[in-house]
């Protein structure tokens, strides 16, 4: 059971990604699909952050008093996720603008009614 205890946060990230994949594959409302894409994004970000985590570690920020650099968590995944969040916002904004244009053209956001997008 120690595997479960040690890696439960990875399980959470993975569950979030799976929920997002399910929403993307199953839902037919375009806004919900975009929310699903965002859920996958959040899950991946959480996964990267928790991959750099060290138990009883501190934030990688020096704050006045003498602080051991050896106890800080890995700063590289945090910087990566900072990048990934901004890219995620860009993707979200672009997808939403496409949804707005589609709604203006078809007067619906239901993917089953937008004939050209059926799969």
């Amino acid at each position, binding site marked *: 059971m120690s595997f479960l205890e040690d890696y439960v946060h990875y399980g959470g990230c993975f569950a979030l990604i799976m929920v997002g994949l399910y929403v993307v594959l199953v839902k037919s409302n375009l806004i919900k699909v975009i929310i699903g894409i965002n859920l996958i994004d959040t899950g991946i970000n959480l996964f990267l952050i928790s991959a750099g985590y060290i138990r009883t570690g501190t934030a990688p920020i020096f704050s006045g008093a003498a602080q051991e650099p050896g106890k800080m968590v890995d700063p590289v995944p945090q910087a990566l996720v900072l990048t990934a969040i901004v890219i995620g916002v860009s993707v979200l904004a672009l997808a*939403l603008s496409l949804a707005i244009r589609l709604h203006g053209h078809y007067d619906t956001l239901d993917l089953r009614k937008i004939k050209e997008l059926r799969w």
Partner: protein
Amino acid sequence: MRKLISVTLLLVIVMIAVFSVSHAMFGAEGARRTGGLREDGVNFGRRYNNRALDETGAANVVAAVVVSYRGFDTLGEVTVLFVAALGLGALLYGARREKNAKEREPASLIVFTGCRFLFPLVLLFGAYVLAHGHVTPGGGFQGGAIVASGFVLVYLGCRGTLPAGRLAAAESLSGLAFVVIGFIGLAVGGSFLLNFLPRGTPLALFSAGVIPVIYVAIGLKVGSELGGIIGNLAGEVSE
């Protein structure tokens, strides 16, 4: 039927992933437990933690990584955000023309006054976060997002509009400042985005050389870009 196929597909993916990683030790925790988290050529997270304060003067190691060690990466990231904002504006330009400005109900007096009172405070807090990115948690992207949340308040609370021209000017100038700082580093020391200013004492506001300057530029750029995105989505940017 489609739902059934999707769910079985997802279950198969889950099973494969669980079986393949169930005995792996991965992440920093796993590396530490197997004694691998030493400072060497590969594990640069540890190296950054040990030396960032001496090398860049920034107390916030994440800010040092984002702006100094991987500054070029950040320039690309800002470019991606810019291209997304550009594409959004281009996509929504025609839609806005068709509908024209529709009349909106003005906000009530209480909402309007509260919004006018809060907007400068939100901007002040955003400016504080983006200027102190190298000593405290925060930085350009976070501060820019707070500034953009102030713009959301204006749209929703005051029912106001933002001057698109001034937003675009702020965005262009701050993006230009980022690139110019990079080229000054290239001219002075021979490498793009070199930290050419004095590092100062750690934990002071004027320390860490060019990191706060670049972070302020990034904050202005992200704030104006997100403000423009929100304005485009709300269809309320004045020409």
